[in-house]
């Protein structure tokens, strides 16, 4: 078991070991994340699946220590990212990690974007902070083109409300990519989008993995998305990972009762024979 852990740490981009996150009182805490282990290899798309309250978003936020403190506390475990002990980082080191190496996108792009600044300015902010000496305007245009916005110059000059939901999420992805992160944490990135737009965004994420070798942690409750996009999957319930493995293996032959229940609940597009 111990040897195995070391082997993973050496090769993995991210290795999370017995992570526990508590909320509320110390004497009687809510165990939002309760001894969770997971890892991501470079270039992998890994899904963390569960329903509301399962602890999947809190696990994801913990990676860059974005848990709202002191309400929430990482009480146990290790997070090793590219060999760094994330839980031991000083705040200056933590700032370098956030945004520059681990980037996040969330469900509601509109609430993650500042309504009073142009999209281009907001994407440029990350470049100005983390990448001194880079020509900001040209880099912003390059990023907006990379995420498939048809008219990058126009999008850069637009305010968030002037863009559709799908375009806003593309702008958020451009912002996340601004510092060439190694890991993109995508927390329900398509839940608020129409199904045709959802497909475009998922295709984009897969393309970014192919072209940039980006590793992606995809947080979702949608097993259809998991089946179509993820290499491996972790199923979470009540703060614990109940099952994990290759996506196709887990979804074809689920071992845990909760995974089976989740699969059974998925509405099917075509009746199975």
């Amino acid at each position, binding site marked *: 078991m111990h040897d195995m852990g070391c082997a993973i740490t050496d090769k993995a981009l991210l290795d999370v070991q017995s992570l526990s996150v508590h909320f509320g009182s110390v004497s009687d805490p809510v165990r939002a994340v309760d001894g969770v282990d997971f890892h991501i290899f470079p270039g992998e798309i890994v899904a963390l699946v569960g329903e509301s309250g399962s602890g999947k978003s809190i696990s994801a936020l913990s990676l860059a220590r974005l848990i709202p403190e002191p309400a929430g506390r990482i009480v146990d475990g290790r997070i090793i990212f590219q060999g760094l002990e994330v839980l031991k980082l000083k705040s200056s080191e933590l700032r370098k990690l956030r945004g520059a190496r681990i980037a996040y996108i969330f469900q509601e792009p509109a609430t993650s974007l500042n309504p009073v600044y142009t999209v281009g300015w907001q994407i440029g902010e990350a470049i100005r902070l983390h990448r001194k000496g880079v020509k900001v305007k040209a880099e912003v245009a390059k990023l907006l083109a990379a995420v498939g916005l048809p008219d990058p110059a126009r999008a850069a000059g637009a305010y968030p409300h002037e863009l559709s939901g799908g375009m806003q999420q593309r702008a958020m992805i451009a912002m996340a990519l601004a510092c060439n992160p190694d890991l993109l944490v995508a927390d329900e990135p398509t839940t608020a989008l*129409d199904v*045709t737009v959802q497909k475009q965004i998922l295709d984009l994420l897969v393309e970014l993995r192919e072209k940039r070798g980006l590793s992606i942690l995809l947080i979702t409750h949608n097993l259809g998305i998991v089946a179509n996009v993820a290499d491996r999957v972790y199923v979470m319930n009540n703060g614990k990972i109940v099952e994990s493995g290759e996506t196709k293996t887990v979804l074809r032959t689920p071992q845990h009762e909760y995974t089976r229940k989740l699969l059974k609940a998925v509405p099917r597009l075509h009746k*199975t024979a």
Partner: protein
Amino acid sequence: MNELLQVENVSVRYGALEAVRGVSLVLAAGETLGLVGESGCGKSSLGRAVLALEPVAAGRVMFDGNSVTALKGAALKQFRRQAQMVFQDPFGSLNPRMSVGSAIEEVLFVHGIGASRTTRRDRAAELFRDVGLDENWLGRYPHEFSGGQRQRIGIARALALEPKLLVADEPVSALDVSVQADIIQLLKRIQRARGLAYLFIGHDLAVVREMSDRIAVMFKGEIVETGTSDQVCDNPQHSYTQKLLSAVPDIDKALA
């Protein structure tokens, strides 16, 4: 003619914007018609127009053989008893300062059902049991319930007047997948027991298929395809329906 609802060339306009453009639909008693489309296609406007919650710019809506388009006063109130709505976010439609029992009793009181408070309370308890909730929770407030429980309350309140038609606008979209499945089963069970007709509005074709006998696909204010659920999902004719279907992350296809 056993059509409960006939929508004939209905248009809904907001100023210069024509959200619904000459739509025609029929819905038989006890049947479920799924109305599927993406945001801005006009599906919610159409659902509201069916319930006379939105003025119709052209065409007419017939319910039980009578036009509801020009209904006013007592006649409109009478129609409201027969056609009710279930919303996506039941929390937004429940008064946070009123116990959920009172919210249901109020509906009965306004429509003159139940001679006394006691009979109204008994009726609310019965409705609560029908939707799978504990009647001892009638005194609780909306925030004390989970999303799935709140949707059950929304359904109980919609059923209070014993309608013949429920327009359900994305009733399970905000819910977890296992809760979604429970609510779909509940809606089906209620339909079997009461012979209700549903206009089931949604954006997720898999969910709409699960619920519906027939499906109408809406795009840019118009119905582009109508058919049985099997026809529309297994053999789509219109290019937009095909696009919609191919965009759904299909779990079975991915695992095949």
